[in-house]
């Protein structure tokens, strides 16, 4: 699965995206656990960052699979 980073999260991780191979579907908590293993610097942002799956915001029940395009969405400031 491809996970995209935006805005300040690019600075935190030093990259725009990371490849995260998933053998089985995971929920949001499991996904965060995987991401924090790779980029522990994301930890302070967890409370403010929303997960998005295939251009939709995820909720508690969302399952992520390997073919998904996932993104970490920090607080937005458009307009």
């Amino acid at each position, binding site marked *: 699965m*491809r996970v995209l980073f935006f*805005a300040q999260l690019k*600075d935190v991780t030093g990259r725009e995206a990371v490849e995260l191979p998933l053998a089985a579907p995971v929920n949001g908590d499991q996904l965060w656990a995987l991401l924090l293993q790779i980029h522990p610097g994301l930890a302070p942002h967890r409370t403010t960052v929303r997960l*998005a799956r295939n251009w939709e915001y995820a909720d508690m029940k969302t399952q992520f699979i390997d073919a998904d395009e996932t*993104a970490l*969405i920090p607080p937005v400031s458009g*307009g």
Partner: protein
Amino acid sequence: MKIEIELTELPIVKTLSPQTGAPGAVVEFHGVVRDEENGRPISALVYEAYPEMAVHQIRRLLESISTRHVCLEAHVIHRLGSVPVGEAAIYVGITSRHRAEAIALLSEFMDRLKQDVPVWKRRSLPPPAATAPNRIGSTGQTPSLKAGPATRSLAGAMAEIQAHCQPLAAVRLPLADAFGRVLRETVCAPGDLPPFDCSTRDGYAILTGDAGGIFQVVDTLHAGVWNPRQLLPGEAVRVATGAPLPCAGLRVIMQENVERKDSHIRVLPRDDATNIRLRGEEVKAGQPLVPANTLLTAGALALLAAAGCVQPLVSPRIRVSHFTTGNELVAPDQTPGPGQIRDSNSMLIHGLLQRFPCEVEQSHLPEDFESAWRRLDGNRINAADLVLISGGASVGDKDFTRPLLERLGFEIVFSQVNLRPGRPLIFGVNGARAAFGLPGNPLAHFVCFHFAVATALARLSGDRAPGFLRGQLAVPLHDPPSPRETLWPAQMEFSGGVIRLHPLAWTGSGDVTCFGKANALLRQPANSGLLEAGSWVDFLPATGNMSI
């Protein structure tokens, strides 16, 4: 409801012309960048988006809100990249039957946009006043710093470099010194070419309508012999290839087609060929001979020589200042200590610049900003048409290329290209002068030179900028899809009537091993997976001595 959504890096120029009859209400909103934020002056806001999701979410919001506030049309344009103070970052245009729905939809949409649409902004502060004496900035003025970490596509970056770099003032040079320069004025033929009727064969000139079989040879003419005479029927003149013919109305019989005996010839087979190049046949006096912006190759120089143009107006030598940075570098003739490497970028740039008419000065800068600033030679920088700084182009603690260029008076046009390798490429301009901050890794150097620096050099000369050519992949290209375009080092060969490209393995942008073989850069589109053998792909030639 009809919905149009656009994300753009260009200024928003929009007024709504309703497409659905006479709607009753047209409500438009321009969100404009203020000159301060949280009490601090700013020069611009820099916007970034997750584009696909932003468009998707804007559409969802509009559809959802319009179920409660029924409108006819909605147009939304959000600008990305650097948006200077006073320009619109967002435009929303709504049409409806009555004003209340449109105003309500607009208001709710703007509130929700600021919560849910993945767009982010960063402040771009006005440049700080230089703390060191401004001994280099060209006129002492502070640059108008518009761009933050602005990213460009490969094509966008090339277009912007072309737009910002203008041809340098032309000079007159002796013809023999003008090889490789770009002609900057059209040179017309001073006289007819060829200047007289001449023979294209070794043979015998006779009157065109003379149907006789036996001729008396009355003269012999070689190239350079000018001896006009009016031929009579039954007369022939022996002519060599290139010899001026003695009069008009002639044809030349090839010597292979005559039998000569003493001063007479007998014509054997007759054909219709005249075997004459007529005066002015190639170009007539006053017609353009070599157009402006022609790269002066040996052939073009020869043509100028033929026209007597001995002092052509051409592009000047481009003055290039190249600086390397990085404490890890040692000169190639030294043995690297632990953690050190030999500097290969200086030689790479030196070599790559060979095919351009340049004067290059190269030197090394110390690692920290203030020392580097003191080391810079102001006269040299101010005299340079093009400044190249290798390394220090990313965002690491010690990367100072951008602040250095800014203090030198360069306005940063972009500081990233959505490309691999070569993403952290900085491009700045200061009047007619251009500067690049090249990512330190050698392969990124190689790539950035060919698509970016070569484009600037071509434009400064007045030459055509390099463009992509088409070739076929010789083997499949297996590469995981990347959101960035890739310029793969490749080896091209001409076979079977097409250029075939062999991608070269590279492990990262620091990879130097593929240099020895790479003579092309293969353009792999973003998000493409496997490319089959035989696929047509774009490429840039990357040879030192070939321009197609």
